[in-house]
C-alpha cells in the first residue's frame, strides 16, 4: 500500500472543476483518492502548479512511417545526441534525434514536459505489429494508436452498399486485430485515388473505381463510430490539406457532422475531431495571395458543439513531415526538392515523408505560424481546441512549451513576429498582430489534458478525479505570480518539478528518476460475430492481400501491457 499526498499546489483540473485553488491531491496505490493516512509520503507543491498528466491527442511517435523517417534522415540526429535520459542504475540512454527522436527520447522528453499519454495518429493496420513494438520500447508513456480507415477497401464497399452493421462489425474486428483505439481518416478517398495517380481535393470528388465520395466515406464512418459507441470519435485529416483556399473544404468536411449526436458511455460529446486544423485553414488562391482562414473556420467550430479540433501549430523549426496523405507529400516535395519517400500499404492506406524547413524568413511559414495561434486564440470553448504540433509535421512535440508560451503571452508572439523577415506581410495576411488575448493556466490545462482526455473518452483515467490513474505534472509556476518573462513560462513547461506516473515519481527537477510499467490502450468491442463480414474478410485476404489472414492480426506478445477499454454492442 503506497500512499502519497501533493500538498498546497495550485491545482488545475477542468474535469473535476478545480480552477487553480490551493488543494491537496491524494494518491493511493497509483490511483487518485479522497484522502490518505498521515503516513503518506508528502510532496510539497507550495508555489507550484499541479495538473493531470498531459494527454497528446495527435502525434506520430511510433510505427513504420516514423521509423522510415528516422532511416532517411540520419542528419536529424547530427550534433543532437545526448546521454541524458534513463535511470542511473541502468546507465544513461542516448537520446537521439530532433524531429523524429528515438523511442527512448520520445518517452523521456514527453515525461519531462509532464505528459503521460500519447495517441499515435496513423497506424497502417497491416503494419500494426511495428507500432506496438515501438510502444514497448518507448518508456513511461501510456500509448494508443488509431488505425486508418479512410481509404480502406472494406469500408468503401460497405459504405457504398449502405451496410452500416457490416461496416461497424468490420471496424470492431480491425480494432481487435490491430489493437487500435479508434477510427482515423486521412484524406478520405484521396490516398486511394493517389494509387491511381489522382487525388480527392473536395468532399465530392469521386474515388476512382470505387465510385464513392469523401463525403460518403466520412458520413459512413461517423455513423459506424456512433453505432458502436467507441470512446473516441472519428478523427479526421480532411481533403485538400495544406493548399491555399482549403478552408472551404474544411468547413464542408465539418458540416458532415451536422445533425449527429455522440452516443457513448465515456463522456465524449463530439462526433468528429478535425486534427491539425492549421493545415486546413488557408485562404487565398495561391502561395502569392495566401492568407489566414482561421476566423472563418473557428466561427464554425465555435458554434458547433459536436466538433473538436487540435491546432497543429507550426513551430518554425526544421522538421520532417510524414502522413498517410501520399499525394500531399508528393506535392510538397515538388515545392522543396529535398527528399521524398512514398509507401503504399495494400488495401488499406499509403504514406509519404518529406523533410521540411519552416523558415521564419519565408512569408508562407510566418502566416502558417500565425494561423495556428489564431485557432487557439479565437476558440471560445478550449475544452474542444487542443494543443498539438501534429508532431513532427508542423514541428516536434518538444516545442509544446513554446506553443503554450505563445498562447499565454502577446509579448512572446510579438517577439517572434519581430524576428520575421516578412513581418509586415505576415501581419497583413493574418489577424495575429491585433489579437491581445492571453490564455491562462486553466485554459492550458483544458487544451493539453482535460480537453483531449474527454475527446478521447479517457477522462476517467487521465484526470485528477477520484479513481483516475495518478498521472500528475507539477510545474515550477506560481499561478498567482506568473513570470513577466515569457521565456520562464516555456522553461517551466519544458521540465517539470515532478512528473508522476501511476503514483510513481518518474521525473524530478527535469531528470528521469524511474521507469514504471506503461500501458497500451485499445478498444475492445464485444459483439456477436458477423458471418457476412468474416466471409468478406476471408475472401479479400485470399484474393487481394499478400499475407494470410492467420498472419495478419498482431499477436498478444506484440502488445505491451495491453489495457482494453471495453464496450458492448448488442
Amino acid at each position, binding site marked *: 500500500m503506497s500512499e502519497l499526498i501533493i500538498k498546497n499546489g495550485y491545482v488545475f483540473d477542468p474535469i473535476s472543476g478545480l480552477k487553480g485553488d490551493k488543494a491537496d491531491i491524494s494518491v493511493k496505490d497509483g490511483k487518485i483518492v479522497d484522502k490518505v493516512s498521515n503516513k503518506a509520503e508528502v510532496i510539497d507543491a507550495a508555489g507550484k502548479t499541479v495538473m493531470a498528466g498531459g494527454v497528446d491527442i495527435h502525434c506520430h511517435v511510433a510505427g513504420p512511417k516514423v521509423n522510415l523517417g528516422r532511416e*532517411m*534522415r*540520419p*542528419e536529424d540526429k*547530427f550534433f543532437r545526441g545526448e*546521454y541524458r535520459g534513463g535511470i542511473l542504475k541502468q546507465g544513461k540512454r542516448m537520446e537521439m534525434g530532433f524531429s523524429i527522436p528515438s523511442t527512448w527520447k520520445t518517452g523521456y522528453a514527453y515525461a519531462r514536459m509532464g505528459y503521460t499519454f500519447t495517441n499515435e495518429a496513423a497506424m497502417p493496420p497491416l503494419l500494426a505489429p511495428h507500432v506496438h513494438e515501438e510502444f514497448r520500447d518507448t518508456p513511461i508513456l501510456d500509448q494508443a494508436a488509431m488505425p486508418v480507415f479512410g481509404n480502406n477497401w472494406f469500408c468503401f464497399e460497405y459504405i457504398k452498399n449502405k451496410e452500416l452493421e457490416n461496416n461497424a462489425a468490420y471496424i470492431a474486428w480491425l480494432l481487435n486485430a490491430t489493437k487500435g483505439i479508434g477510427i482515423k481518416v486521412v484524406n478520405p478517398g484521396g490516398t486511394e485515388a493517389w494509387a491511381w495517380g489522382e487525388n480527392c481535393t473536395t468532399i465530392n470528388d469521386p474515388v476512382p473505381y470505387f465510385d464513392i465520395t469523401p463525403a460518403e466515406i466520412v458520413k459512413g464512418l461517423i455513423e459506424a463510430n456512433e453505432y458502436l459507441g467507441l470512446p473516441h470519435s472519428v478523427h479526421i485529416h480532411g481533403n485538400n490539406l495544406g493548399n491555399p483556399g482549403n478552408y472551404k473544404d474544411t468547413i464542408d468536411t465539418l458540416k458532415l457532422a451536422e445533425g449527429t449526436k455522440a452516443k457513448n458511455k465515456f463522456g465524449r460529446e463530439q462526433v468528429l475531431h478535425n486534427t491539425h486544423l492549421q493545415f486546413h485553414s488557408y485562404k487565398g488562391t495561391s502561395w502569392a495571395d495566401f492568407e489566414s482562414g482561421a476566423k472563418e473556420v473557428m466561427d464554425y467550430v465555435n458554434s458547433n458543439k459536436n466538433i473538436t479540433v487540435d491546432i497543429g501549430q507550426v513551430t518554425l523549426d526544421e522538421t520532417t513531415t510524414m502522413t498517410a496523405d501520399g499525394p500531399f507529400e508528393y506535392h510538397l516535395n515538388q515545392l522543396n*526538392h*529535398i*527528399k521524398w519517400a512514398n509507401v503504399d500499404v495494400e488495401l488499406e492506406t499509403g504514406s509519404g515523408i518529406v*523533410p521540411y524547413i519552416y523558415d521564419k524568413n519565408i512569408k508562407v511559414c510566418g502566416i502558417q505560424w500565425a494561423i495556428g495561434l489564431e485557432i487557439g486564440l479565437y476558440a471560445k470553448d478550449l475544452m474542444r481546441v487542443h494543443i498539438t504540433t501534429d508532431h513532427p509535421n508542423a514541428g516536434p512535440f518538444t516545442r509544446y512549451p513554446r506553443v503554450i508560451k505563445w498562447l499565454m503571452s502577446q509579448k512572446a508572439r510579438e517577439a517572434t513576429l519581430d524576428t520575421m523577415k516578412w513581418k509586415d506581410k505576415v501581419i497583413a495576411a493574418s489577424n495575429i498582430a491585433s489579437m491581445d488575448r492571453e490564455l491562462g493556466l486553466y485554459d492550458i490545462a483544458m487544451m493539453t489534458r482535460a480537453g483531449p482526455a474527454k475527446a478521447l473518452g479517457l477522462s476517467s483515467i487521465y484526470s485528477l478525479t477520484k479513481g483516475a490513474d495518478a498521472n500528475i505534472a507539477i510545474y515550477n509556476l506560481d499561478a498567482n505570480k506568473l513570470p513577466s518573462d515569457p521565456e520562464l513560462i516555456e522553461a517551466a513547461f519544458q521540465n517539470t518539478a515532478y512528473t508522476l506516473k501511476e503514483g510513481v515519481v518518474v521525473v524530478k527537477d527535469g531528470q528521469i528518476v524511474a521507469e514504471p510499467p506503461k500501458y497500451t490502450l485499445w478498444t475492445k468491442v464485444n459483439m456477436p460475430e458477423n458471418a457476412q463480414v468474416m466471409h468478406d474478410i476471408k475472401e479479400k485476404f485470399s484474393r487481394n492481400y499478400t499475407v494470410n489472414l492467420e498472419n495478419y492480426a498482431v499477436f498478444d506478445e506484440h502488445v505491451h501491457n495491453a489495457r482494453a477499454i471495453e464496450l458492448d454492442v448488442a
Partner: protein
Amino acid sequence: METVTMTLTSQPELFLECYNVTPDQFAGKSLAEIAALPAHEGKIQWKLGDFFKFDGKAGETAADTKIVVNGDVRRMKRFGQKMSAGEIVINNDTDMYIGGWMTGGKITVKGNADSFLGIAMEGGEILIEGDAQNHVGSAYRGDWRGMSGGLIRVKGKAGNDIGTAMTGGTIIIEGDAFIHVLTHAEGGTVIIKGDVEGRVGGQMVKGDAYIFGNILYPLPGFKKIATVEKEVDGATYTFDQFIGDLGERKTKKKGEIIYGNIYLKK
C-alpha cells in the same frame, strides 16, 4: 600569431574524436585548460591531455591562434571541426572529418586525410599534401546541404563522392578521382586535374566540373554545346563544354534555363 604545439604521447585503443582541437576552443585558454578539454573514444569521455602534451601559447582570439599537431595521428578524427578562424597544421596522416563544418581559417595536412574531408564546409581553406579518401566537401550522409564556400585543395588523389550536394566553394583534386563528382549539386566548382572513373554530375542542377584528364564512363544525361577557353586555377585551357543533368529538374534565372556544366579539357 601565437602557436600551440600538441604532440601525441599515447595512442587510443579505438579512435579519438578531436572535435575540440580548433583555434576557437583553444583561444584565450591556458595550456592546462586546453589539456582539460574533452575528447571521446567511442562513448568514453577523455581529456585531450590524456593523449597529447601541449607546448607554446594560445592567442587571445581564434584568428590569433595556430595549432601544430605532431605525432602519428592516424587514429584521430575531427581536427578543426566547426573552426571559424586561425590555423591548424597537422604534420602527419590523419583520420576522418578534418575541417568538417568549418567556416573560416586554414588547415594544412602534410600527409593524407581520410574521408569526409571538409564536409558541409562554409568557408576557409584546407590543403592536403597527400591523398584524400571519399566524400570530400560533400554533405553529411542524408543531408542535402554540402559544401557551400571556401577552398579544398588535395595534392594527391581522392576517392568517390566529391562535392555531393555542393552549393558553393571550390574543390581542387590535383590527382585522379574515382566516381560520383558533384552529384545533386546546386552550385560550386570541382576541378580534377587527373582522370575520373565516371558518374560526373549525376542529378546536378547547377555547378561546374573541370576535368583535365579523361572521364572513363561519362553519363548520358549531358550533351556537348561548345568549345570554350576558361581560366582555371591560374592558367587558361581549352575545354569541351557539356550541359546537364538533362534528366534533372531545371531552374530558370532571368528567363534562361540554368544547367550544370562539365568542362572536359581538350
